[in-house]
């Protein structure tokens, strides 16, 4: 072995230590201890890694097995092979030593070339294992960092796409971020979030920002028309739900994201209503997923309090009145009840800060 290693020899007899040290001192740094207590002091005071411990069993002050127990409990020498070198023929001692994690038991009288071979082989094995672990950890970290970069890029692309659509509607892109925040708050603070894991809630909130992505397929004339849409124009506007779902399903990279199934569902169903009076599929009640229900309420809540090309911003009171009286369609009563319970906390998240 090319590199000098540090080996700790623990034996109460100086002659045994001399013999063992003579085996290693040409190629390694050997430190000695006369008993378990001394060994602990050496291990604590040394500022370099110990590559192997050669341990006698019977010693005054603290015997080899006691030292092994302390080392094991205190994790003082993790990943360091320990060898019991003993004149003890008692198999119970050997069993206990192996149970306490010794690598090998070597009998006295020692045969130097055998001891050297056995110990250096194990040291080499441990060094290789450590190198391998280090390489695996480095690779895992690199992969994790790459995958985090990809996720950030995906999120960035999603945000860029949805913001671009909002700009087309004459908005700043803040609406989608507010929908994200309201959706996440509802999931985390109401019973509607029950049954979802933390990660699922994060994915649903991310998916919510893509709810209006289908508006890319709607012409600027309709999208930015001041005032009321004609029946025909409204029919075209309604296609942003189906077009959104179609668009999302045509992006292969998006289909691989955990958020995709939620994004697809939300884009398609965020205008459905509890009584079946929504569009495009006229789903009713529990046919509409919880995430689509939450996003549709969040969308209405924020849109009512925002200025749009076709209307001024309503006050918080007026917006709530319109929601509760069903002027924006009928919502799930449980959703409404939970929404009203936490609405005050949602005000800072919406356009105009809920008049506050």
């Amino acid at each position, binding site marked *: 072995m090319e590199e000098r290693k540090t080996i700790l020899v623990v034996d*109460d*007899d*100086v*002659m*045994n230590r*001399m*013999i063992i040290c*003579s085996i290693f001192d040409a190629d390694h740094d050997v430190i000695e201890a006369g008993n378990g207590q001394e060994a602990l002091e050496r291990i604590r005071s040394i500022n370099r890694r110990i590559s192997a411990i050669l341990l*006698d069993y*019977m*010693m*005054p002050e603290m015997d080899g097995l006691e030292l092994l127990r302390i080392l094991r409990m205190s994790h003082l020498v993790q990943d360091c092979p320990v060898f019991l070198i*003993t*004149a*003890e023929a*008692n198999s119970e001692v050997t069993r206990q030593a192996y149970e306490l994690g010794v690598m090998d038991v070597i009998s*006295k*009288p*020692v*045969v*130097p*070339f055998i001891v050297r071979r056995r110990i250096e082989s194990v040291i080499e094995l441990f060094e290789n294992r450590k190198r391998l672990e280090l390489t695996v950890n480095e690779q895992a970290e690199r992969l994790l960092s790459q995958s985090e970069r990809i996720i950030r890029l995906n999120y960035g692309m999603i945000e860029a796409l949805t913001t671009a659509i909002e700009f087309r509607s004459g908005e700043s892109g803040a609406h989608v971020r507010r929908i994200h925040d309201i959706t996440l708050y509802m999931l985390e603070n109401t019973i509607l979030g029950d049954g979802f894991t933390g990660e699922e809630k994060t994915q649903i909130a991310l998916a919510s920002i893509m709810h209006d992505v289908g508006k890319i397929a709607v012409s600027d004339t309709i999208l930015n028309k001041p005032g009321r849409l004609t029946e025909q124009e409204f029919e075209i506007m309604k296609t942003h739900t189906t077009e959104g779902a179609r668009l999302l399903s045509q992006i292969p990279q998006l289909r691989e994201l955990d958020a995709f199934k939620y994004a697809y569902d939300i884009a398609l169903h965020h205008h459905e209503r509890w009584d079946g009076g929504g569009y495009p599929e006229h789903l009713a009640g529990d046919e509409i997923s919880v995430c689509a229900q939450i996003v549709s309420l969040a969308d209405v809540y924020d849109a009512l309090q925002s200025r749009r090309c076709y209307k001024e911003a309503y006050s918080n009171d007026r917006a709530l009145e319109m929601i509760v009286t069903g002027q924006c369609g009928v919502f799930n009563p449980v959703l409404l009840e939970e929404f009203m319970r936490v609405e005050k906390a949602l005000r800072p998240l919406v356009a105009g800060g809920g008049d506050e």
Partner: protein
Amino acid sequence: MSEQLLELLEAHGVAAKEAAERLGGNCALYLRVLRRFTEDRSCALLCEAAVCADAHKGLLYSHTLKGIAANLGFSRLSELTQAQCGLFRSGDTQEAFALTGDIEAECSRLTALLEEVNGQS
């Protein structure tokens, strides 16, 4: 010179050649370790344990002597300490301590022999 010393030790019942062989034929190291034996206190401590009838210490020092004897080729001492350790383990403390005299005598004999060897080396 080393060869003669090994022969002398062999003549007095020490398996010196085998012990030196185990140390990779390093006679200098073997003789250096032998010198240390004359300063070793394990036998004296074993005798003290016998006086106090302290079986725990008796086993500890007998065991230490057993390891030294095996390493250095002290065949007779090795046999005696092995027997004594066995008796301590089986709980025959009295019989175990009864061997202390023989062990002390063997250690004295070896010490005298090693002093002679040291004088010649």
